[in-house]
């Protein structure tokens, strides 16, 4: 268990490629996997690693994120000492309240960082989904005497259309980073950063102040890319399942991977559970005509129709005669009688009226906005 690090999660990322999924929420609050929001994974990973103090930097549209996190109770982060610190933007004489980039954001929460008594910081973005504890990574960081350790995995898939904050890493034999590319047109390696860094808290403070003084805004572009050869930067390889919310297409693809039991087993390891806000729904109910195959369903669903290759979040109703194939259906959506859906992503609270039919394609899933009615 880690007892000498605190977590700092930057949820200010914006990603226009997620289209309507981030219309009313930040990337961190995007629902994933039938029961969770994106932020649950990184937050649970930190808590399962023994981290007791987590700062959550908020920027764009953080209402649904704050609603979800509450006091941090579900993650055991409602503590007298430490716990969850929500760090929204604010205005001061040298801070406009709008972050131009992650450097701005880190700088405005240096107050929190200084108060933390831990020696190390685990710095994370919020659009990468995986389930592990950081103990091994921390041990490696200490053993290699690295300045910065970056978590990465091997991601052979590449589509320029889906590219988003794609940090590629090249290593020497020792595992030290010898080259870095951000959003390359032709990546030279399949090793991709998972957006998690470990470093000493003092180094973070130094790097942020230095970069700010030179008018730089982005931690990856202005600090990592410029300093990887003067700092000792190492990679920590993760071999398990990683999902990245890069675009609607990757969101769709990685959600569908959960129907494969191996990645799902990786993500939902009983040794380190993924906590989330509890909704107290009843068990999912199957009617006499329910016909469900190869799907993942959360509690509170009421199923009377046919479902195949789909992910259903909590409290979804599928009426008689409806056919739902290759769909992601978020919380509280309602699919009426005899409706047909194929390759559709339904955001929360969508209503599909009786007999309606929507068909998308594998590389072009239809996205329905929150609370839309068809």
């Amino acid at each position, binding site marked *: 268990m880690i007892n000498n690090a605190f977590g700092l999660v930057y949820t200010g990322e914006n990603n226009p490629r997620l289209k309507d999924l981030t219309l009313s929420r930040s990337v961190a609050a995007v629902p994933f996997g039938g029961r969770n929001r994106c932020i649950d994974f990184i937050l649970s990973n930190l808590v399962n690693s023994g981290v007791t103090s987590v700062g959550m930097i908020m920027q764009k549209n953080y209402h649904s994120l704050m609603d979800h996190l509450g006091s941090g109770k579900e993650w055991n982060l409602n503590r007298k000492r430490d716990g969850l610190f929500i760090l929204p933007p604010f205005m001061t004489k040298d801070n406009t309240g709008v972050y131009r980039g992650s450097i701005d954001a880190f700088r405005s929460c240096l107050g929190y960082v200084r108060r933390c008594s831990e020696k190390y910081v685990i710095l994370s973005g919020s659009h990468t989904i995986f389930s592990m504890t950081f103990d091994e990574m921390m041990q490696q960081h200490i053993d290699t005497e690295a300045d910065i350790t970056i978590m990465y995995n091997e991601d052979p898939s590449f589509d320029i259309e889906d590219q988003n904050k794609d940090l590629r890493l090249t290593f020497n034999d020792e595992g030290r980073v010898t080259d870095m590319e951000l959003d390359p047109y032709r990546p030279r390696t399949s090793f991709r950063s998972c957006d998690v860094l470990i470093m000493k808290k003092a180094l973070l403070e130094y790097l942020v102040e230095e970069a700010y003084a030179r008018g730089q805004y982005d931690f990856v572009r202005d600090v990592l890319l410029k300093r990887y050869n003067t700092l000792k930067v190492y990679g920590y390889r993760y071999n398990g399942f990683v999902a990245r919310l890069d675009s609607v297409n990757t969101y769709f693809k990685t959600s569908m991977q959960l129907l494969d039991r191996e990645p799902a087993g990786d993500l939902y390891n009983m040794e380190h559970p993924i906590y989330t806000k509890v909704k107290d729904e*009843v068990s999912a109910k199957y009617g006499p005509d329910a016909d469900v195959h190869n799907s993942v369903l959360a*509690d509170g669903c009421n199923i009377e129709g046919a479902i195949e290759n789909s992910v259903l979040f909590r409290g979804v109703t599928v009426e008689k005669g409806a056919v739902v194939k290759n769909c992601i259906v978020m919380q509280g959506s309602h699919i009426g009688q005899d409706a047909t859906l194929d390759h559709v992503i339904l955001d929360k609270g969508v209503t599909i009226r009786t007999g309606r039919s929507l068909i998308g394609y594998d590389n072009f899933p239809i996205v329905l906005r929150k609370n839309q009615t068809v």
Partner: protein
Amino acid sequence: MKKKIVAMLLAGGQGSRLGILTSNMAKPAVPFGGKYRIIDFPLSNCVNSDIDTVGVLTQYRPLALNSYLGTGQHWDLDRNGGGVFVLPPYMTEAVGQWYSGTANAIWQNCGFVDQYDPEYVLILSGDHIYKMDYAAMLRQHIKKNAAATIAVISVPMEEAHRFGIMNTDEYDRIVSFEEKPANPKSNNASMGIYIFNWKLLKEYMARDDADPKSENDFGKNIIPAMLQAGETMVAFPFEGYWKDVGTLSSLWEANMDLLGYPPVLDLNDPQWRIYTKNPIMPPHYVDKNAVIKNSLVTEGCVVRGTVKHSVLFCGATVEEGAVVEDSIVFPRSVISKGCIIKKAIVGENVHIGANCQLGGPNLGDGIIDNKLTGDITLVGNDITLPDNTYVPQGAVVNQDTLEYHLKEAVR
């Protein structure tokens, strides 16, 4: 801190008619309905009725119940000045004694109730499945200026002899009370839910405690004594679902009551949620060849076989080719490939090996004691059944009888 009303939940019962299900836990801790335990119902009713101070009186095998209740956070009962409290029997300088009856349990915990100096006290039992607004009952109690209000439900006349029957006048005032009468005069059965004026109840409990012949029971002693003294006792008629799940067959039936369309008991009610401790598991997975009809399936389940008219609790697994019908599978149990499970209750953490058959016809020469089970087959908690085991209808499998069933299987 003064409270208007404090609830006291009697959760000490063994529930011996539930057989081995209660061999290591008290009846209120028995699982129900896919993700609940019986005690979730009275606790959630309290929270939904704005009662935020609940004493839970435990006595029999309290471990499961204590650890389940925790700080009460799952029911929103982790409050400043209130919340849920577990109240076990205790020692004093002179003597220590077990709770000798329902009234005695409250009497021994007068100190707890007095901390809140309430005007009223609500007495509940932890044996029933129902959704009820206690606040409405309290409003009636105050409006009718009653000394005691007793919730009653209409039961079929031919079953009335199994209940405590309240005979009322046209204003719902109770005129007489009969415990399990041979020839009932009415069908207003007491639900074991009482509101008393606390000061008055204390007087009656004190008198009752001084009487060595008393059984210290609300139904047998306190209520008759109050009636005799001419106190204003009013019935609160309840309409809706109410089931005593004290026997295996009623527990099985109550679970099946959740399955119909519309269900006899609908728990999917956003206005009246039943709260419970959440297991933190991923959504359930249904495989390509799975068949699920008329069933409840909970988070953490993996279904690869056939499940019909059954309730699967969190983390239950049904492997390929297995058939589960008319059954209840408690949390984290595994039904392996090719099993046939019919009308069974499978306990927690059970592992049933491949090609086992549960609930098949009784082959005759085996000695099956089905006094408690009837035609329900019961497998106790933490049992591992080897492959190809045959367990006939009505049989009970626990550590003691496991060996016998294994011998049968070999033969």
